[in-house]
């Protein structure tokens, strides 16, 4: 199951558009929609595990995970994107390394690792809500699918901002 890329290699900004060599993206589904993040920032992917809740934290912070001694903060993508909560029992953890800290994105379902070249990145369509758009770098289109690329820097900026503190 785990196709984790353990390298904590140099972070790349998604806007590095002139490189044409394809890069890998880990994709996953949240409420039926496909999203992906650059595989280089993904530390590993693990099944749902016990979460220690953080009382008084904002709703998108589900709590803390003990990942073999590393404490990782679990972020609910659903709450982050302000999607209507739906009962989903098992969630997958996409553990990302954001600016040196471990953060897990809680998603519904893990999809494939896909390859895109950065210059194929297109603007986010208008149909996507402004809230979600604020976390995206752009979209990749394949004949049958649209992959929304999550910009982890934007996520981190949001988490650190005052807006995120209002529970």
């Amino acid at each position, binding site marked *: 199951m785990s196709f984790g890329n353990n390298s904590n290699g140099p972070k790349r900004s998604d806007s590095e558009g002139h490189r044409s060599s394809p890069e890998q993206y880990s994709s996953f589904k949240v409420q039926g929609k496909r999203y992906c993040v650059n595989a280089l920032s993904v530390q590993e992917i693990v099944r749902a595990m*016990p979460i*220690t*809740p*953080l*009382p*008084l*934290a904002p709703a998108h*912070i589900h709590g*803390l995970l*003990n990942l073999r*001694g590393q*404490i990782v*903060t679990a972020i609910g993508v659903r709450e982050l994107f302000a999607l209507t909560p739906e009962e989903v029992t098992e969630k997958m953890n996409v553990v990302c390394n954001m600016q040196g*800290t*471990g*953060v897990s994105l809680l998603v519904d379902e893990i999809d494939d690792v896909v390859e895109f070249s950065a210059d194929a990145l297109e603007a986010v369509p208008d149909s996507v809500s402004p809230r979600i758009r604020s976390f995206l770098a752009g979209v990749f289109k394949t004949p049958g699918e649209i992959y929304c690329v999550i910009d982890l820097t934007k996520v*981190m900026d949001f*988490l*650190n901002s005052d807006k*995120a*503190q209002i529970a």
Partner: protein
Amino acid sequence: MDERTIEAKIRVGELCARLTRSFLQAENQELWPDHALCDSMLRDLHNLKGLCMAIGATKESDLIHGMESLLEETRKKSTFSDETSEKLLKGIDTLTEFSESGLLTGSSPETVSEFQAPLTGQDGKVSAAAQPVTAEHSSSRGSALGRPQEGSSKDSENFLRVQVSLLDHLMGLVSELVLIRNQLHQFSATNDDTEFLAMSQRLDVVSGGLQTEVMRMRMQPVSTVTLRLQRLVRDLGKELGKHVELHLEGNETEIDKTIIETIREPLTHVVRNALDHGIEPPEERAQSGKPQRARLVVKTYQEGGQVIVEIQDDGRGIDTSRVAKKALEGGLISSDRLSRMTTKEILSLIFLPGFSTAEKVTDVSGRGMGMDVVKSNIEQIGGVVDVSSTLGRGTNITLRIPLTLAIVPALIVHCRGLRYAIPQLKIVELVRLDSEDEAQKIQCEMLEGGPVLRLRGRLLPLLSLRAILHPEGNERLTSKDVQGSIVILRNDGHDFALAVDEVNDSIDIVVKPFVSFLKSLRIFSGATILGDGTLALILDLAGLCEHCAMDTSARTTESQSESMLGETDANQRQRLARGTNPEFLLCGIGERDVAAIPLPQVFRLEVFERKDVELTARTPVARYREGLLPLILLSKALHLSTDFQDEETIETLLSANQLDVIVTERHGRFFGIVVSHIADIIHTSSKVNELVRPNAGALGTLLEGSNVYTVVNVAAIVDTWMRDVLGEEPPMVSEHTKRALARILLVEDSNFFRKYTTSVLQASHFEVLAVSGAREALEHLRQEPENSFDAVLTDIDMPGMTGFELAKELRASDAWYKQTPIIALTSLVSQRDRLMAKAAGIDEHIEKVNLDKIPALLADVLGRLWQGIKGGAA
């Protein structure tokens, strides 16, 4: 740079540090030349030169050569001049910089040439004179060289240079091992296999030992930081024109390397502040009768799991009124808040960001940065900063620092199935609410809408972890909600109670700090992994108090006053004895004016309705406790001269729908003082100004923040009322002293006077412990529990230790008796004696002439002291 160079440079740094110390020592040497010291300095310089030459730092070795010659010169002189030491220290600065820089050679040519100047630049005589000296000395230098070389080779055999990062990594591994041990521990509890148990036991011992040793490896003597202060104090003292003697105590105390690094800056700040603000210029010191040379003590010691660093100066101290004024001006605090603050709280205002009392901004400090940095730096590593100060006598700043950061003992508590860790250092005690034993029973009560815990006569604000962490549902905490275990915690010197579902073990936890975006959750300081692999959040008490918007200090103050208004309490006596920080009840008189009544004189607060009030023999009275309570209208009575019961007054009292009455007790009877409303209770350090007495019935005025209050002389009002209305002469000794309110420590060397005074005092219901000397008195004070004496009554002329010395000793201490009123029992009081006594810290005098009058005088004096009014003899 190769490894050899790095090592050489480290050694250069070490030698520079040692030479700095030697130069400073030489500077303070009375007798010069001190050949032994000179030899050791030359030896160090020579080694230093050798090191520099070995790594090809030729400019540096030239510089050192110049320094050697300069030092050699001083042998012929009778003093080690300031100029010389200045030059040498400058050389050392260059070398230190070099040792810390990444460059191979980096000395500034100016410094080198400066050293060559005295040798070559002057006329031939000097250089000619210098020549033979160097030659003559070369032999002695040669002999001196052997020893240190031996020493250093021995050093290198016994010591190993290890990179800090390696130790950090090792510490991390040990931390993990501790976790595994805890896990195993938990598992072994459910296992009966004896072999396994024995192994786990051994692992326990070994890992414990490993943990201690690794921690010790990271330990460094605090001298690595404090010795640098010597230089700082010297240079700053020169710059500011102040003479300061620095005493370092406990330099050998060891602290974790990372903590040493974090206290370096705060400590420097505090010392700078002490020099700049605290210590006065020599002229000012001379005027106030202090030795010109100021004393700055930096004392380090271990206590419990903490390292305490105390920085004491004997400077001017912190003027709380100025602090308060500055804080108000700077808009850092509201006047309303300020009026409720205690002296200690006002003192701690200096830690607010942007606070500075310096009149002018200097290079040294005063830019409004510093103390807040000190506080935040120390708090970041889980430490505490405390400040205490006596105006005119000096300031004492205490840094309490944990021994190590990585592993902290903590108590695990439960709340709704989740576990939380509370750092053990913050825990005062654990209590259970549902105790079977009635006598031990701890009560939970409601006060001002919030629950409080009554614990052995103290009222503590009570918080419930459940209500804090899960605010949904529970709108308001009631006393019924709180049950089970209660943890008494201390934050910032204030105690409060926290109700939890269950209390678990105390274990060593490894603190894992939160990621940046969780830092806003101030009630947690991080998380830790427990033995079973689950996580526990670590509670941050400062954040917790902040979250609950709980001003622990204010609440405690108010709850104490609440208990004072009720029946007499053990607290009351203690609070009375403290005396220096009196509390006042604020109440309205007339339309606008507000008067202050010393709280000790308030027996109860009552509200009477119109039907309770009647007229008996032209005197308005209220039914009260199966008797009649005479009512005195404060707005009238304050003037004393007017008729107490004119038509208007009676009309006012009888027609009001509701009367706010302060019940006071005097001469064994109750009196009701009618005010227009009861406003507040304040706790103030301001003194009552007796010179400004707006009315005859006033003791004086009280300036608190921006408000001025008339302080009511309840005794005078009641006594005048008795004379005027009842036509009775009030008894001489006020009744309240008859209830053995005060316990007195009597110090008197003469057998006769001791016995006689004791019997007289006892006859007047004072509790007396009589001792025959000052030393014995000190013994008693140290051994007895806090506030066990309300006053010290002492003779002045005594063999061994005089009363003055005793007073000084008490005032200089940090114990509870620092504040205890001291009353001198003297045969003759001259003006000079008075001044001396005042300087020693004696509050009042009672003349020995008529011993039978002592109780009355003492009662009077104590009454005034308890109201915070000093000065003037009995």
